[in-house]
């Protein structure tokens, strides 16, 4: 065990001890989330953007549009690509370098909920069938990792897409400062992440809880109160009753976050 991991292990013992007494280090209840603050349109050179603070965790997401070619099996649909950079700016635990498993997983989990809820009307992003479509790049940049980057990123990505505009496209050129309307979207998928520490489960883990976790469950809820994506992470395990309970909890908690995003 490296020294860093060892020190986290010392802190983990503490987290677990307090949880057994029903207490979280920051005083929250087990299924209580931290406060969410959303600032839409934060970035001037992205077609859509949002900065999100989830407690002290801070994430910024930018949506950029470019001209691309469609996938061969969907010649009249635009393309959505979600990426995340787990940059050392946000945490001493992150390293520079090409994306590794953790980064790719995070990006794909966040993407999954957006894609499976059909939030972006990709059918309306066709310029020339089979030839030209709009590619929507959602790039997520966490700036302060105090736990649960996934939920904060999901909110930021969805909010960025919701305020995104399509740039004017004339004579085969994109005119960046002029727009031809909003990016067509529907619905607002919301992610809820739980961490299992020993036998205890908490919603919206902050950094010490996240580092102490044995397993993580992210559940994405769509506007119909159905699960549109889920991902289990970490080397521990969940019992079936736990999973079912957590899904119901996510359904209960999603509407409040959805409302916050939609009211922007």
């Amino acid at each position, binding site marked *: *065990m490296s*020294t860093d991991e*060892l*020190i986290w*292990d*010392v802190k983990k*013992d*503490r987290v677990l001890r307090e949880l057994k007494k029903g207490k979280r280090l920051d005083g929250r209840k087990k299924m209580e989330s931290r406060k969410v603050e959303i600032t839409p349109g934060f970035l001037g050179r992205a077609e859509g953007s949002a900065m999100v603070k989830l407690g002290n965790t801070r994430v910024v997401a930018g949506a950029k549009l470019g001209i691309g070619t469609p996938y061969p099996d969907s010649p009249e649909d635009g393309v959505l690509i979600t990426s995340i950079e787990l940059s050392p700016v946000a945490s001493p635990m992150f390293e520079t370098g090409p994306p590794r498993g953790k980064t790719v997983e995070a990006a794909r989990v966040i993407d999954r909920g957006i894609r499976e809820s059909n939030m972006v009307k990709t059918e309306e992003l066709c310029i020339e069938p089979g030839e030209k479509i709009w590619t929507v790049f959602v790039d997520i940049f966490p700036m302060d990792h105090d736990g649960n980057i996934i939920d904060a990123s999901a909110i930021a990505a969805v909010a960025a897409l919701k305020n995104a505009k399509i740039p004017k496209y004339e004579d085969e050129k994109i005119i960046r400062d002029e727009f031809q309307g909003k990016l067509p979207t529907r619905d607002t998928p919301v992610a809820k992440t739980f961490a299992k520490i020993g036998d205890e489960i908490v919603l919206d883990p902050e950094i010490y809880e996240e580092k102490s976790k044995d397993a993580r469950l992210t559940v994405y809820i769509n506007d119909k109160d159905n699960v549109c994506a889920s991902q289990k992470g970490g080397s521990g395990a969940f019992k079936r009753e736990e999973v079912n309970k957590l899904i119901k909890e996510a359904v209960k908690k999603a509407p409040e976050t959805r409302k916050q995003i939609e009211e922007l």
Partner: protein
Amino acid sequence: MKKIVIPGEKIEEKANGETYREKKGKKTEKRSKRYGMLYKNNGRGKIIPMKTKYIPQKRDKIIGVVSSVKYGGYVVDLNSPYDAFLSTDEADDEYKLKDLISIEIGDVDEVKDTSLRNGRKFYGGNMIEINPAVTERVIGKNASMISMIKEKTGSKIFVGANGRIWIKGGDSRKTEKAIEKIEEQAHETGLTEKIKKYLEQGSD
């Protein structure tokens, strides 16, 4: 008197080692090396950095975490970019990985190779980590602050110079919160009063 100082800022007062000298033409200027608070009393000054990393210094009493058990001794994490070695004859017991111990820093050479002395194991309790620059405030002048906290919460407290604090028993949650408040408000005036009020009322 207290004044914010910025690295490179000229310091007129007599101050402790957080300054350096630079020749400017025929004169030498004394300047601050740190972002900190300059306290001046009776013509003598002291700069306390706003934040610092712990660098081992001889005779410091600190809290370490056993990070490796070796033949003949232990590698100890000091909450510092530097680890140190404690030989078994300086340990008061047989230690295991993750054990919390209080130790004294022995010799530190130019490349920061550090020897340790007088290991004593902590049993039970919790450890928290704060900014090492403010441990003096947690102790207070003539231990006034820490005595007050101990008295009002009934906790056993050990403050390591490396920013690690061991707390056991009493109203340990309150003790922790009080120490967190001291860390946030380290340079404010009337801090002792504020903390006293918090401990008595549970709010401030």
